[in-house]
C-alpha cells in the first residue's frame, strides 16, 4: 500500500511555486514563439525575463520558510529552506544576467530565438529543482534537466562545424558521466536500501567494514559523474572546446548556471548523505581539487583566446570550491567545521557566478562589433573604450582574488576554512595557485591598459549589456566593502 500513500499525499504547492512558475514561463515562451512574426521573435527574451522575475518573486515569497514535500517513507525529498532559496535566487539572477548577454547576440545572429530562451529556462529549472532535491532520483533528474537543454544550446549555431562539435562533445561526456553517476547511485541504493539522503546518511555510517570498498567505489562513481559536470581535472576536456564552439552567451551559461548547478548537487550529496564516512573519500576530493586548480591555471597561462582563457580559469576556480569538500569531517564535533566548509563553498559559488558572468559579458561586448575573441586584439582597449576596459579589468581582478573586488573574499573564506581545518598543505597549494592565476588575468589587463591600440575606434556596447555589467561590478565592490551582504545569507543556510 506504500505506493498509494505516495500517490495520494497532498502536495505543498507554495513550496514548488518557483519551479511551477518557471516551467509555465518556459512553456509560454515556446508557444509565443510559434505566433510571433519573424521580426518580432526577440520578444521571447522579455517574456523569458518576465518569467524569471516572477520566479524570483515566488522565491522571495518563500523567504524564511522551512518546508518539505513529496515525502517518501516519511522524509521529504523536496525541501525549501534557506539553502535552497539562496541558490534558487542565485540561479534567477544568473538567468537574468545571461538573458542580458544573449539578447543582442541572438537577435543579430541567425538563431531560433524562441527555442533558445525556452531551452535556457528549462535548464534553469533544473538548477532550481536541484537546490531542493534531497534524494538520489530527484538529484539525477535535476542534473539531467540542467544538462540536456544545455547540450542543444551549445549546438545552436547549426551551420558552424565547431558549434556542432561543441554540442557533440558535451553530449558524449554528459551521457558518460550520467551513466557513471547512475551506477554510483545504484550501488548506494544497494548498500542502504534507500534513495533518500537522510536515510542514507543514517544507515551508511553503520555498514559493516567489509562493505567499505563498495562505499568508496560508489562515492567515486558519483564523484566522477559530477566531476564531468563541473569540469574538474581530469574530466575537463570537453569544457574549453564546448565553450569555444558554443555561442558565447551559452558558454557564459555553462560556466555559471550549469556549473553552479553541478556543485549544488555535489554539496547536497556530500554534506547531507556521506559525511559520516568522510574519512574514506576525503582524499579523493583533495587530489581532485589540487589537480583541478593547478592544471586549470597552468593551461590557462598559454591561452590566446579569451573564451578559452575563461574556460580554463573557470576550471581552476572549480578547484577552489572542491577544496571545501576536502575539509568535510566525520564524527562528533564535525558539525561546526562542516558548516564552515559549506559556508565558504556557498560564498565562493555566489561570488564566482557573478564575476565570471561579468567577464563573459565583457568578452561578448567586445567581440560584438569592432573586436574579436583574441586576447591580442584587446591591446589598448582602454584608450578605445575606457569603461568597457575598466569593467573587464574589474571582473578579471576579482577572478584573480585581489582587492578591491569581492573575489578576494571568496578566496579568503576558503583559505580560512582550510587553515581552520589545519590542512595547511592545501592552503599553501591554493596560495601558490593564486599567484600563478594572477599572471594570466593580469596579462589581459596588461594588454588592455598598457599596450597601444591598433585602431582608435570605440567599441559600441548596448545599454542592456552596460547595465548588466555595471550592476555586476557594483555588486562585487559592495560585497568587497561589506562581505556580510553575502556571508550572512550563506551562514544562515545549512542544508
Amino acid at each position, binding site marked *: 500500500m506504500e505506493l498509494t500513500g505516495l500517490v495520494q499525499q497532498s502536495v505543498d504547492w507554495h513550496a514548488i511555486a518557483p519551479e511551477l512558475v518557471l516551467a509555465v514561463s518556459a512553456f509560454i515562451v515556446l508557444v509565443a514563439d510559434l505566433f510571433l512574426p519573424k521580426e518580432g521573435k526577440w520578444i521571447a527574451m522579455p517574456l523569458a525575463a518576465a518569467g524569471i522575475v516572477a520566479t524570483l518573486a515566488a522565491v522571495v515569497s518563500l523567504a524564511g520558510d522551512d518546508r518539505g514535500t513529496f515525502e517518501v517513507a516519511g522524509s521529504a525529498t523536496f525541501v525549501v529552506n534557506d539553502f535552497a532559496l539562496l541558490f534558487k535566487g542565485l540561479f534567477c539572477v544568473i538567468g537574468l544576467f545571461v538573458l542580458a548577454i544573449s539578447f543582442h547576440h541572438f537577435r543579430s545572429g541567425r538563431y531560433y530565438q524562441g527555442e533558445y530562451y525556452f531551452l535556457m529556462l528549462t535548464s534553469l529549472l533544473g538548477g532550481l529543482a536541484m537546490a531542493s532535491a534531497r534524494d538520489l532520483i530527484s538529484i539525477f533528474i535535476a542534473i539531467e534537466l540542467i544538462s540536456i537543454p544545455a547540450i542543444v544550446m551549445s549546438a545552436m549555431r547549426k551551420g558552424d562545424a565547431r558549434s556542432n562539435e561543441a554540442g557533440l562533445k558535451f553530449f558524449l561526456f554528459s551521457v558518460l558521466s550520467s551513466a557513471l553517476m547512475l551506477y554510483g547511485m545504484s550501488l548506494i541504493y544497494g548498500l542502504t536500501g534507500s534513495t533518500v539522503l537522510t536515510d542514507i546518511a543514517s544507515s551508511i555510517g553503520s555498514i559493516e567494514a567489509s562493505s567499505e570498498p563498495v562505499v568508496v567505489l560508489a562515492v567515486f562513481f558519483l564523484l566522477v559523474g559530477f566531476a564531468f559536470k563541473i569540469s574538474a581535472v581530469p574530466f575537463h576536456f570537453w569544457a574549453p572546446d564546448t565553450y569555444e564552439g558554443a555561442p558565447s552567451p551559452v558558454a557564459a551559461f555553462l560556466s555559471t548556471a550549469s556549473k553552479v548547478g553541478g556543485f549544488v548537487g555535489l554539496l547536497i550529496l556530500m554534506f547531507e548523505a556521506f559525511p559520516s564516512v568522510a574519512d574514506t573519500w576525503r582524499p579523493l576530493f583533495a587530489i581532485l581539487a589540487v589537480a583541478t586548480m593547478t592544471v586549470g591555471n597552468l593551461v590557462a597561462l598559454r591561452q590566446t583566446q579569451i573564451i578559452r582563457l575563461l574556460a580554463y580559469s573557470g576550471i581552476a576556480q572549480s578547484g577552489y570550491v572542491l577544496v571545501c569538500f576536502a575539509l568535510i569531517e566525520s564524527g562528533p564535533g564535525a558539525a561546526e567545521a562542516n558548516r564552515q566548509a559549506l559556508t565558504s563553498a556557498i560564498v565562493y559559488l555566489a561570488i564566482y557566478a557573478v564575476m565570471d558572468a561579468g567577464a563573459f559579458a565583457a568578452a561578448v561586448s567586445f567581440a560584438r562589433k569592432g573586436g574579436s575573441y583574441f586576447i591580442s586584439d584587446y591591446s589598448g582597449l582602454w584608450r578605445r573604450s575606457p569603461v568597457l576596459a575598466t569593467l573587464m579589468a574589474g571582473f578579471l581582478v576579482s577572478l584573480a582574488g585581489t582587492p578591491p573586488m569581492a573575489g578576494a573574499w571568496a578566496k579568503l573564506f576558503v*583559505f*580560512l576554512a582550510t587553515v581552520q581545518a589545519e590542512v595547511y598543505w592545501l592552503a*599553501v597549494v591554493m596560495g601558490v595557485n593564486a*599567484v600563478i592565476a594572477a599572471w594570466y588575468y593580469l596579462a589581459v589587463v596588461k594588454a588592455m591598459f598598457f599596450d597601444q591600440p591598433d585602431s582608435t575606434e570605440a567599441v559600441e556596447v548596448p545599454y542592456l549589456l552596460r547595465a548588466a555589467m555595471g550592476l555586476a561590478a557594483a555588486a562585487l565592490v559592495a560585497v568587497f566593502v561589506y562581505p556580510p551582504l553575502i556571508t550572512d545569507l550563506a551562514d544562515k543556510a545549512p542544508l
Partner: protein
Amino acid sequence: MDWLNDWGLSIATFLPAIGAVALLLIPSAKEKLMNTAALVITGVTLLVGILLCFEFDYGNAGALQFELNKEWIPQIGANYHIGVDGMAFPLFVLSLLVSFLCIIYMRWHVPEPGKPKAFLALVLLLETGMTGTFIALDLMLFFIFWEIVLVPMYFMIGIWGGPNRQYASVKFFLYTLFGSIFMLLGFLALRLNTGTFDIVQMVDGGVSGSSMFKNLVFAGLALGFAIKVPMWPFHTWLPDAHTEAPTVGSVLLAAIMLKMGTYGFVRIAYPILPDAARDFAPVIGILAVIAIIYGALCCLAQTDLKRLIAFSSVGHMGFVMLGLATLNDKGINGAIFGMVAHGLITGMLFFLAGSIHERYHTREISELGGMLAQIPRFGSLFTYAAIASLGLPGLAGFWGEMLSLLGSYEPGAGLSPALFRVLMVGGGIGTVLTAGYLLWTIQRVNLGKVPANFEGKPIFDVQPLEWIAWTPLLVLILVAGLFPKLILHVTDGAVQGLVGVLGG
C-alpha cells in the same frame, strides 16, 4: 568634538575612495576641474588630519586614541577596529600630507599618456589603502587595506611608467602578492591560536604554542613585511618599480608604501610575537646592515639618477630595520623617526628627479651637470635634499640613523651586544658610503660645467606650483632636524610600551 574622535580617522581614510568614484563621473574633457576636485578631496582629508593633530592627546601618546570598534564580518570574527597611537599617528598624517602634495604636483604635470581622470582616481584609491593600513587594529582589516594599494600601483606603473614599465609593474604585483600570501597564512594561524583577529586582544592575551610555531608564524609575517620594506634580499622589485613609476608613483611608493612594511613589524609582528622577535632580531639586524652597505655600493654604480635614489631607499630602510632589530627604545624610536624622515626626504628627491626629467628629458647622471649654474634655485633644492638624505645633523635624515646606531650599542631584550656592536660599525661604514655617493652625485649633477647640448637652452627654474608642492616637505625636513622632539615626543610613549612587551 565627539564626531572627530569617533569618525575622524574613518573620514580621512574613506573620503579619498569616495572621491575617486565621484571623480569618475566628471567628463573626461574637464581636466582642470578634475584636478581641482581631487585637490579639494585630498585637501579636506588633510584638514581632517590636521584637526586630529589638535585633538590628539600627546601626554598619552602610548595609548590608542580615536578608537572605534564595530562589527564587520561576524562569520569570521573580523571587526572594523581602528585607532592610532604614537607610532601610527605620524605615519597616518604623513600619508595624508604626501597624497595632497602629489595632487598639487600633478596640477603642474601629468605624465604621458595623459588621462588625468584615471591617474587621479588611482592616487585617491591608493591614499585610502595607505592611511587605512596605519589605522587598522584588526588583522583582516589590515590585510584588506594592505592589498588595496596593490592594484592602483600596478596600473600607475604600467600605464604612466617609463620604457620598461610592463616588466616593472608585473614584477611589483607578483612579488608583493607572493609575500602577502605568507603574511595572510600567518594572520590566519594567529587567528586560530587566539580566536580573534583583534590586534589589541592578541597583544594582551598573548599567543600560546611552541616556540617553533611562533617562529614559523613570525617568519610568515616577516616575509610579507620584508618584501614591502624591502629588506635585502627581497628588494629586487624596488629599483624597477621606483625607476619606471611616474614621479607621483615613486613619491608615494617611497614616502609611504615602504613604511607599511616596517609599520607591520612594530604594530603586528613584534608585539604579538615578542619571543620570536627576540629570536629573529639578530637575523634582521644582519640583513639590515647588508642592505645598508649593499644599497650604498649599488648607488655608487648607478648611472640613472632615479635608480640611484631607488637604491638609496634600500640603504635607508636598512637603517630603519637595524633600529627595529635592536629591540630597545632608542632603536625603535629611531626607526620610526627614520620612516618619517625617509618619507619626507626621499619623497622630495623623487619629486626633484621627476622634475629634472621634465627639464632635461634625461636622467642619466653623465649627461647632466652644472645645474647650480643654470637653474640655481632648483640646484640648491637638490643639494638640500641630497645632504638631508646623507644624514647631515640639523636635517631630518640625521636623527633616525643616529638613534639606530646608538640603539645598536646596547641592544635590548638580552640580545648579544657584541654582534650588534659589529652591526653598528657596519652601519657606520654605511653612513660614510652614503655620504660618499650622495656628495659624488651632487658634484656630478649640480656642479661642473653645463653640458654643451643644454648650454643656452631655456631650462626653467623652480615653478610656482613646484614651490607650493615642495615647501611643506622642505620645511618639515628642517623642522624635524632641528626639533626631533616634535616627533620623538609622539612616538616615545608607544615605543616604551612596545619595548615593555618585548622585555627590554
